[in-house]
């Protein structure tokens, strides 16, 4: 089955991973800008990172027939530095019109601070001004619930935000319902230890149905598994779910969400099953 990984950080992965993903049926992926594992020292570091996302990774993926798309922002962790964040926000428009750029992301909160919220709101403003889609990172572990509620408060406060163009990512059992009920898309991240397992993601599909739901690996430089989406596919098959339902979650839904962005010039494989 062909699939799209809607959230994966390939800058942290090897070329072998691209090949493995292609062999497992991955035909498209979207890569949000995120924290590199260390705080960057200047706006120029971000400019280079955005070049890597919009140019190099796109070409590296294409070698294996994978179509690569990306999102730009300063991540929630480095958003604690408001002055640097504003410098980064100022250069993002240089990249928004490039092929494969889907929008602003992954913006959000990390420790739910005032600075993070300030920069989140400024990202929203940037997205609105440039009619961009938005991909939202929700915090980890015990900060997730409060942070997700704060994020939903900020998004719902702004009537200019088109909720069907916003993806609330890393939802789990206690945050999926408010995200979906408010009309947003939601992503479940499949991680070995934190976030969600393939089995729990399948549970949530059974409980909430496939509407506006996606699964992703969020493969990065930490403990993560870039082939987690195929694991989810296998779990759904093991439970006897129809291929049409599985394909809707791992292929149709990402296409439906991403095609709201002008940067999503996706060429579907001829023989999509």
């Amino acid at each position, binding site marked *: 089955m062909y699939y799209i990984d809607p959230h994966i950080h390939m800058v942290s992965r090897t070329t072998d991973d691209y090949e493995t993903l292609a062999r497992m049926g991955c035909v498209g992926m979207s890569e949000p800008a995120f924290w590199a594992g260390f705080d960057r020292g200047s706006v120029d570091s971000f400019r280079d990172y955005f070049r890597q996302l919009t140019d190099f990774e796109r070409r590296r993926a294409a070698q294996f027939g994978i179509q690569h798309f990306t999102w730009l922002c300063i991540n929630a962790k480095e958003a604690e530095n408001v002055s640097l964040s504003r410098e980064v926000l100022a250069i993002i428009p240089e990249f928004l019109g490039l092929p494969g750029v889907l929008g602003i992301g992954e913006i959000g909160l990390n420790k739910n601070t005032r600075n993070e919220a300030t920069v989140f709101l400024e990202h929203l403003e940037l997205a609105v001004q440039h009619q961009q889609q938005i991909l939202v990172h929700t915090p980890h572990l015990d900060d997730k*619930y409060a942070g997700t509620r704060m994020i939903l408060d900020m998004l719902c406060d702004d009537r200019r935000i088109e909720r069907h163009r916003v993806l609330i990512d890393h939802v789990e059992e206690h945050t999926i319902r408010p995200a979906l009920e408010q009309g947003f898309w939601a992503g479940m991240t499949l991680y070995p230890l934190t976030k969600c397992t393939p089995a729990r993601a399948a549970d949530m599909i059974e409980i909430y*149905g496939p509407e506006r739901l996606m699964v992703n690996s969020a493969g990065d430089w930490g403990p993560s598994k870039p082939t987690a989406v195929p694991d989810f596919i296998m779990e759904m098959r093991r439970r006897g779910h129809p291929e049409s339902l599985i394909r809707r979650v791992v292929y149709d839904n990402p296409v439906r969400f991403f095609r709201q962005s002008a940067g999503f010039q996706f060429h579907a494989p001829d023989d999509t099953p």
Partner: protein
Amino acid sequence: MSDTATPSPDPLSQTEFLQIRSRLLDLAAALDRAQRAGWNRDRDARGQKIAEAFEILSDDGPERAARIQQLFSLAHDPKWREIFQLTLRTTFGT
């Protein structure tokens, strides 16, 4: 939700039962290891959370996973915007 398929007709398959059994043993062994290393559950706030999580596991109510997630979550303060003194569109471009 029309596409939602019904899970396996056996509500608790033998495979699922063995996975539950295995995970319970993992939990028990992890707590035994911590105890052997000198961990005192009653003197650790995390120990209280774990005890509460076991209570949720052993009751017969719905949405145990969501309730355990909530147990391990910090509370949301609906007045956070007043505390932060943030209002929409006050910061960008000003």
